[in-house]
């Protein structure tokens, strides 16, 4: 299995809930990584303010921020090689880079389920026993 690390700019929390607004991208990444972890795949996340030592330890990341600064963060590292910069991997990229089935990335979005529900609402039943 391949080792993946994501190096992020200084942040208060990985979901971005501490920021002045919720960043849906951070939310997506947090939950995808959470799902991967439940499936036994650990992707490490290092943010500059809480894990600065990691930015020293990883030579390629260190070189990267020395040359490009911090505006090009986050960077994704796969087996010590920088594979994506300036953004987070998409769900497809996560699956491909880690070589895992997309079901490892979490449940299907709830909106789909809701659509199914509204269809079944047509059955006409009411109350707590509704399908």
């Amino acid at each position: 299995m391949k080792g993946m690390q994501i190096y992020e700019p200084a942040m208060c929390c990985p979901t971005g809930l501490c920021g002045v607004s919720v960043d849906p991208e951070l939310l997506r990444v947090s939950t995808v990584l959470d799902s991967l972890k439940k499936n036994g795949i650990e992707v490490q996340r290092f943010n500059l303010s809480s894990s600065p030592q990691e930015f020293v330890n990883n030579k390629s990341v260190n070189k990267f921020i020395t040359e490009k600064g911090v505006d090009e963060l986050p960077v994704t590292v796969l087996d010590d090689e920088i594979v994506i910069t300036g953004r987070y991997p998409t769900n497809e990229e996560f699956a491909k880079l880690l070589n895992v089935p997309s079901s490892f990335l979490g449940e299907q979005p709830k909106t789909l389920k809701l659509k199914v529900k509204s269809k079944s609402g047509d059955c006409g039943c009411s109350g707590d026993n509704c399908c």
Partner: protein
Amino acid sequence: MNNFNPKKIALTKYLFYTGKGGVGKTSTACATAVTLADSGKKVLLISTDPASNLQDVFNADLNNKGVIINEVPNLTVVNLDPIQAAAEYRESVIAPYRGLLPEAALSNMEEQLSGSCTVEIAAFNEFSHFITDEKAQKEYDYILFDTAPTGHTLRMLQLPSAWSNFISENTHGASCLGQLSGLESKKGVYKRAVNTLADSKLTTLILVSRPEEAPLKEAERASKELADIGINNQTMVINGVLTSYDDSISESLYQKQQKALTEMPQGLKGITAYMIPLRAYNITGVDNVRALLAKDNCIVSDGKITARTILKLKDVIDDLYLSNKKVIFTMGKGGVGKTTIAAAIALGLSAKGKKVHLTTTDPAAHLKFVLAESSGISMSRIDEHAELEKYKEEVLSRARETLSAGDIAYVEEDLRSPCTQEIAVFRAFAEIVDKADEEVVVIDTAPTGHTLLLLDSTQSYNNEIKRSQGDIPESAKKLLPRLRNPDETEVIIVTLAEATPVYEAMRLEEDLQRASIAAKWWVINSSMYQTGTTNRLLSAKASNEVEWINKVDSHTNGKFAVIPWSPDEIKGDKLKKLII
């Protein structure tokens, strides 16, 4: 009610002073500390107020390590400045990486570690250190905490339980607290701090109040909230009680105080109360601190007012009207009457035909108590708890659109973080200021410490806004630029003609200048000087005001107004008198 005499009362090792701003927490704590130290006990006095004035009281340069007071050799005083604590913490995180990481990375870290969250955490760390420190426990007979104004204190005291729950329940690691590496290891310290606070053999909570309605209500609220988090060993000190009268002014003050004490809130009735008589002097300098619990000295000073004319609040309102200000703040130390003055300004501008919105961020304020809803002025209050729930629901409802149930549980965990409340309040604040597009917004802010944190977070959030990819409310983007525009925003600094409120107002003004927010007018509230009292104590008190009125006059270049002390509660029709 017996006089407060620490030598005659069984005291625990840890003493906590809390109460509304301006009730005399610092004076009472200092007087207790000096009295105990004079009787041969080793005493440690700690202030956790971001706007502490212990340095004025003891006339000494203080720090967060502890300074021995020359005139009171048994007394050590510590001033925990949260801003400084945060700076030290920030430096401890960044320093090891100088030279190892590029400058851009260091400044990115620094910026992230400058938010109000860090300030609060750093302050709390130091605070819990002193509650749990074994060396301090062995070295001192008494350890006294002169706390920040109530709202802030409560949050701080609630943090230990909130945080230790957060850390232990959070299954995906203390994510939001990630910036404080090693926080997990502090868990034991926080737990011990909470246990110490809740142990009635170790800790006494001293609720300080004035014999007035609003601070007593606040004391009741604090008493209940602190009891809820396990701090049940409570006692009360009523500070500034007038014990006799001989003219109409002193009689009406006496009656007003006695009425407030007779009608004391139900929740306080079971708590043992002591009193400290009203004093004519300002509680600064060790001599006055020593005298506070012992004796009065009604010395009438012979200073003369230097100002040629003393303006009224009406003149301030005229200026605000003519210069067409859109956002008006009343700021100052707690207990100086910011709510009343904000309401009077709102009423004054409304009477001139402006559409006005009046709001408060002070959890202890009761706008509707001051101003009737039928006054034609719209009113609101930023309620921290309500705003938190609103924000949580907003985030979750958005998350529900795209995330699965398991993922939502994950988000819910992060929303339990203490930072979330700060953000919720910040957003509510931005929304209110945003109303200034349509109408004049008058904002009665919470006591100084909290206000400073709020403005500080405004600044750091503003930096974050610039780089965040998230969906940022327009109101948040517009906030700081608007507050910094002197054509739109004006801060009225409210004070009393006494040493501490004036010094504190000056520090507040400096902080505002640092944040590039304009403050032109000062208002001196509740002045005895213009009442013409002949009572020995009150006239001595009035004469002591002259020095401070003069100081404000020269400091503001005459841009100040004075409101005389009034025997009545200033509300309803009484409020109108302030604007004519």
